[in-house]
């Protein structure tokens, strides 16, 4: 048990990535495709500490969020970034949204609200993605779901603000806050969805997105 060679010790302690070569660090800006093939194979998440993995995933989510939220002029960057889809971000946002809404909803049945919001988010994202494909779009199913999930971020923020601070304020102010969040969400996701179909069908592809966020905004105001 003490005969382990020194290199193996180093590997176990420092993780597989630090074996004397240049550090093939995962650059979330570029995605996984930037790693060379043997670096990808050595990119072994089993031997690295857990907080490294979690930090890297959180960074990935954060980068995607900034890409989707801040309107950028270079659509190609967006497309390249979002091709590396993941569903962690949408899941986290969906859970946050559902929890906020079920706590603050003005009905007698909070769990029903949670169920409805959760199902509507995932089923709605799936339906909008299939709709995009049926209209002849050239984007994969999971990429659409990923984009729609990330664009829930403004609505989640609005729901949180609503729950914390705005419970006893005039209804009109809540309408304004939720309205701003709705417009922000729709704008950032429509820009992405509409570029994947031909221009004559842009309205057809964008309308379901609009409907999806409208329904969720109404839930926040419920």
């Amino acid at each position, binding site marked *: 048990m003490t005969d382990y060679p020194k290199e193996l010790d180093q590997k176990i302690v420092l993780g597989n990535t630090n074996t004397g070569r240049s550090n093939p660090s995962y650059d979330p800006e570029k995605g996984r495709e930037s790693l060379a093939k043997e670096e990808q194979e050595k990119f072994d998440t089993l031997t690295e500490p857990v907080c490294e993995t979690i930090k890297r995933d959180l960074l990935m989510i954060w980068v995607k969020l900034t890409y989707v939220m801040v309107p950028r002029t270079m659509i190609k960057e967006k497309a390249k970034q979002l091709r590396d889809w993941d569903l962690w971000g949408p899941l986290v946002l969906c859970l946050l949204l559902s929890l906020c809404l079920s706590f603050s*909803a*003005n*009905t*007698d*049945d909070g769990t*029903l*609200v949670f169920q*409805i919001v959760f199902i509507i988010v995932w089923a709605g994202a799936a*339906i909008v993605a*299939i*709709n995009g*494909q*049926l*209209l*002849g779009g050239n984007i994969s199913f999971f990429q659409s779901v990923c984009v729609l999930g990330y664009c829930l971020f403004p609505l989640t923020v609005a729901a949180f603000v609503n729950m914390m601070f705005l419970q006893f304020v005039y209804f009109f102010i809540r309408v304004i806050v939720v309205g701003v969040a709705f417009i922000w969400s729709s704008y950032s996701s429509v820009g992405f969805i509409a570029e994947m179909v031909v221009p*004559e*069908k*842009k*309205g*057809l592809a964008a*309308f*379901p997105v609009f*409907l999806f966020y*409208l*329904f969720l905004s*109404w839930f926040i105001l*419920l």
Partner: protein
Amino acid sequence: MADSPLGAYQPPVVEANRPREQVPKKEDDEFNLLDIDFNNYDQSESDVNLDSSLSDKKQDNPVIADEDIQPDNGKFGDRPHGDQEEDINMNQPSDSLINPNRQNMADMEANEPKIVENRSLLRYFTVEYYKEYFDVTTQEVVSRLIRSCIPLYPGSIYDNGKVDLYGPIWIVISLNIAITIFGNIARYVSFDSKDEDVKYTSHLEGLVKSVPVITLYFVCMPAFLNIFLNFTGVQYVGKITFKLVSIYGYSFASFIPAIFLYMASAPVLPHKAFNSFEWLILFAAGFISLFFMFKEMVQVLRNNIEEVKVAAAVVCLGHLILILMMKWKFLS
């Protein structure tokens, strides 16, 4: 592929050959409707029409539109042949082949969905099978929506393109959402808030009840009509027709403005007037939607067969039940 249509080649007259070659053809003529159409279609085609646009027509196409040979066609004027899926055979298969309006064939061929050779059942579950029903532009869908809410147009709403399923599906989903949102807003506005103990609570049961009912209507009623009309009287030539689904979906379009009006009139009208106004607009919307459906299905209704009347009665009853449920369950 073949050098000549069937029957052009005359075998040499030999005792053994002569009687047998005629008999199988006749038997086919009697029992196989599809073969009748195909064979004679080719023969009479080559005589009359030299239009080159028909040269690449598909050989396995069993679809013949014979709407023009009906005697009372004059009063409907020029009906453009926009759709392929309703081929109502008027029990005269041989007469239907001598089709006087041959120049419309090219248009019909162009508009027809492609027939896939592979006929497994799994193809109904792929995205590609349904892509041809989503081949519309925004402009076409908007014009179809407007015309289905105000059914005072000539011809059919499908004149400007192919039969689409985008409109119906999103109309049904929007109807569900409209019932939920507008119903709740109307409830909020007309809430009697003088009583301090009773606080306003939102009503999600409208959503939970309306979604299954409307979706069931949208799925089952056209399926029922398809099967019913296929097996009795009116004959479709062997394909699943989504045109009925499309028509039924577009007929729901008139309910959405009705529900919007319902919400918009809630703060304005006093309570009793509001109640009767609600009945009024729901019945008006139901009437418009039935009128639209009958206008589109004029072809089928010209058959005054008993089964068509039964189908029409079932559709009317379905709409009536839908209106009653809307008033009492979804929007209360």
